[in-house]
């Protein structure tokens, strides 16, 4: 890494002043809603992702400032959980279950089909920007696999045909 000029330790750009308005609002509202909770960082990150569909890394300084944490602390938690996205996904996220029970009932074929249908690998976003495909390990719906979740909606017994229907909707 190059020795770039650092931001001086006392230079205070007001945290969040460089954020787009919607991101700034999402952070501030999330913090407002969760501030009183003990260990409020996780609920705050969830609330932000619920609203923006991701947690922009550039929002971390504002999150840290509002919760009086260091940026490192927020980054550590944000990067630990794969559920939290640090890049903007497609308009919808398809979480495809790869856990044992679903694999035993056709998830492997579904995975291959989904990748082909959307033209992406895991973590990729379809060319039309509609879908991002993510693996997930168990949706707690083992009796009815293969399961997937589109955004927050759970679908059971998903065949390739059903998958096509779902993504066509």
């Amino acid at each position, binding site marked *: *890494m190059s020795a770039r000029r650092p931001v*001086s*330790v006392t*230079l205070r750009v007001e945290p969040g002043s460089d954020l787009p308005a919607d991101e700034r609002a999402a952070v501030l509202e999330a913090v407002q809603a969760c501030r009183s909770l003990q260990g409020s960082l996780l609920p705050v990150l969830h609330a932000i992702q619920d609203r923006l569909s991701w947690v922009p890394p550039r929002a971390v300084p504002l999150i840290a400032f509002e919760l009086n944490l*260091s940026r*490192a602390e927020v980054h550590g938690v944000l990067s630990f959980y794969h559920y939290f996205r640090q890049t903007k996904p497609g308009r919808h996220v398809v979480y495809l279950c790869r856990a044992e029970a679903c694999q035993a009932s056709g998830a492997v074929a579904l995975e291959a089909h989904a990748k082909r249908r959307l033209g992406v690998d895991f973590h990729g976003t379809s060319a039309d920007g509609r879908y991002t495909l993510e693996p997930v390990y168990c949706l707690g719906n083992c009796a009815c696999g293969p399961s997937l979740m589109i955004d927050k909606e759970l679908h059971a017994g998903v065949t390739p045909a059903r998958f096509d229907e779902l993504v066509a909707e």
Partner: protein
Amino acid sequence: MQSIADIDLGTPERRSETQVTLQIDGCEVTVPSGTSVMRAAALADLKIPKLCATDLLEAFGSCRLCLVQIEGMKGYPASCTTPVAQGMKVTTQNGELAQLRRGVMELYISDHPLDCLTCPANGHCELQDMAGAVGLREVRYGYAGANHLDAPKDESNPYFTFDASKCIVCSRCVRACDEQQGTLALTIAGRGFDSQVAASQGESFLESECVSCGACIQACPTATLSEKSLIEQGQAEHSVVTTCAYCGVGCSFRAEMRGEEVVRMVPNKDGHANHGHSCVKGRFAIGYATHPDRITKPMIRASIADPWREVSWEEAIGHAASEMRRIQGKYGRDSIGGITSSRCTNEETFLVQKLVRAGFGNNNVDTCARVCHSPTGYGLKTTLGESAGTQTFDSVMDSDVIMVIGANPTDAHPVFASQMKRRLRQGAQLIVADPRQIDLVRTPHIEAAQHLALRPGTNVALINSLAHVVVRERLVKEDFVRERCEVDSFEKWRHFVGEDRNSPEAMAAVTGVPAEQVRQAARLYATARNGAIYYGLGVTEHSQGSTMVMGIANLAMATGNVGRSGVGVNPLRGQNNVQGSCDMGSFPHEFPGYRHVSDDATRALFERQWHVNLLAEPGLRIPNMFEAALDGEFKGLYIQGEDIAQSDPNTQHVTAAMTSMECIIVQDLFLNESAKFAHVFLPGSSFLEKDGTFTNAERRISPVRKVMRSKSGYADWEITQLLANALGLKMDYTHPREIMDEIAALTPTFAGVSFAKLDELGSIQWPCNDEHPEGTPFMHVGSFVRGKGKFMVTEYVATTEKVNARFPLILTTGRILSQYNVGAQTRRTENVAWHDEDRLEIHPHDADERGVKEGDWVGVQSRAGETVLRARVTSRVQAGVVYTTFHFPESGANVITTENSDWATNCPEYKVTAVQVTRVTQPSAWQRRYQAFSERQASLLGEAGHAAKPANGMPVR
């Protein structure tokens, strides 16, 4: 990597009344309750393998190398996280454990480079040691699998490298940053195989929140975090314990050496002031000591327009002495004087004042404490009876409410700030009284209960209104006051502060602090089980500096917050030895130990020892010397390690005074600003080149040890001795220990101090005498040094430095973490990576009004002068107040400051200057003159054989 001299016991010490006895591998061990099995074993010299544990940090239990077997317990508990229990039977080594440990090591080594022979940690790598200790012979997994061997290196920090390929993700660095430093700049990003140490959000260390304290490097068990100096030079072969020469915290360090070369400075775990912690200055910024700018040959010249001429020591000393005698012959005995240095050792300071009093035959000696903590000396002596802070640093760990007034510990006293922050994270409450939002007001996991953002110059109004609340809301600790204090003085004070005009409501108009906030703060402090006040130059450097110090002492006494751990009145001293230089009799009116020169018995004592007659009249203070110089009555000055031309207020006045003198002798490492006006230059020695002692803010006398020969040939005490002998004052010390013996013989508070005792105890807090043979961590226990505590009436008197239409803003000044005072040292190190120019902080409102944007050049005009700086627009400062640091001479911060000073001690009012700020396009007239003069002086130095170069790279504007 820890110091080569340190033994790591694995987990931190626990203190307990209860002792626990257990058996480890058949050996009986007795340790305090709460101690870990690992530490108990280490104390019995039984080494349990470990990687993630170190005694600087709380146990973490992640590496699984320290597993043991304990009779009656299932499985293999980690010895680092398992506390000892009475009768416990522990097995640390057997075949089963060996196999487990080998398995763990095998996994570590399967993803670690095998370049031990060329690795900078070679010889002191804990991973390497553990591979040996567990008998690792093969890695069955091979090395071809997924690994981190190509992880990039981060070399952004000027002092250390982060080589992720060598990282074992033990989290020691992360925990050091959290627990020790309290910055929380590091984290483990990702998880599982992807886990890696990240600075802030995965940016370079230099851009991150990292403050470069070095704790992570010390904690790292491998070469992942290594000092660049270690990488370049290789392992040290010996280490010497010495004391840092930067701020008044006085951290103990181990100078790790190869011959006479310093490989690195490692904070000493046994250091009583710092307990193994450090900051970016003491840890890394020592490059100045070997900087090519250092002048190592004596030089003289007839006038400051002449080129410097390198001469022999004999000629330089002879010339200096004959000039001083000539001046005294022509202008009188009192026409010369000396200034001692708060950067030099106690012994050196003592000798300079001895030279002035006994050799010059007058009392014209002063010290740079004049411009920083002289009001502390005066104020605390008057009220409590001793001119020093009341506590030991560790006392803060017993505080429940901490009030910080006019100090910025995280920048100016970083190692103590880390300790204070640790206590605040444990739940102590914080009150900050400061015009500016210093970091402590709100920093990760810490938030001040009250930030009293007062207007500069209104400290006394604030302290009186705090006291008003204590008195009127019946929060006075009556029994303490009755038993410990002068009742008359208390009643007078109680009546005075109780008057309505001192109420927070009445004073709000003066201080700008809402009354309710003052009331809350007063209640918080007064009702705390233990309330402690820490203050800095924001208290002293005012026209009412001494009044404010007494106001603080009043408040502490009234609330019973003196005389035990966790409380007290604590001045945070700016310089390494400012306490010591004051103790050593550097003031014109006091002999060592703060005894007035008019005291016949004391004078007789010194006269007998020194075989001279001494004057009973105080001599000139520094500002009086300047006045006398401008009046033509003061013509010769011997300056030991101080840069008055940069650090004293109203630079143009100072330099006019200096220009009028006939012989200025500057003893320093560099051709500093003052040396540009000098006639004799005596090259001094750095703290690495001499023996002696420094005394820190907690009265702690710590040893300074010579680790290399002096570059100029003489330590500073030897130079003073040469000059004294040339002036006919016989001195024949062969070692500073003999000077300390003389100090001890002459000074009751130092009576028990000797180099031998310092070697034995590590450090000593004075008073050290028959009554306190091992020193005094807490003062005024049981009774005050002066007997009864004395309350002083502290009427608020507004400074004459007032804002008006012409000068509508108040300028106040301070320091920044990476730079130190006039910057003579830190500017000559890589610390400029963090701060390479002084900037003017201005509130967005004031900036808007003037059309000033971030980074614009702005002219700052005061009644005294004008300079030009770049603006930093920030709401850290309040509207109406601007702020700058003063680390770069070309900034000319002191061109603007005025000669206003404390009524009692003449400590300059640096913190309040009425100014106007306007956008400009070129340097000020002063800066242009400064540049031309500096270039001329550099060329005059160049003619003496030194490489000519413009002074300190004035920015092109």
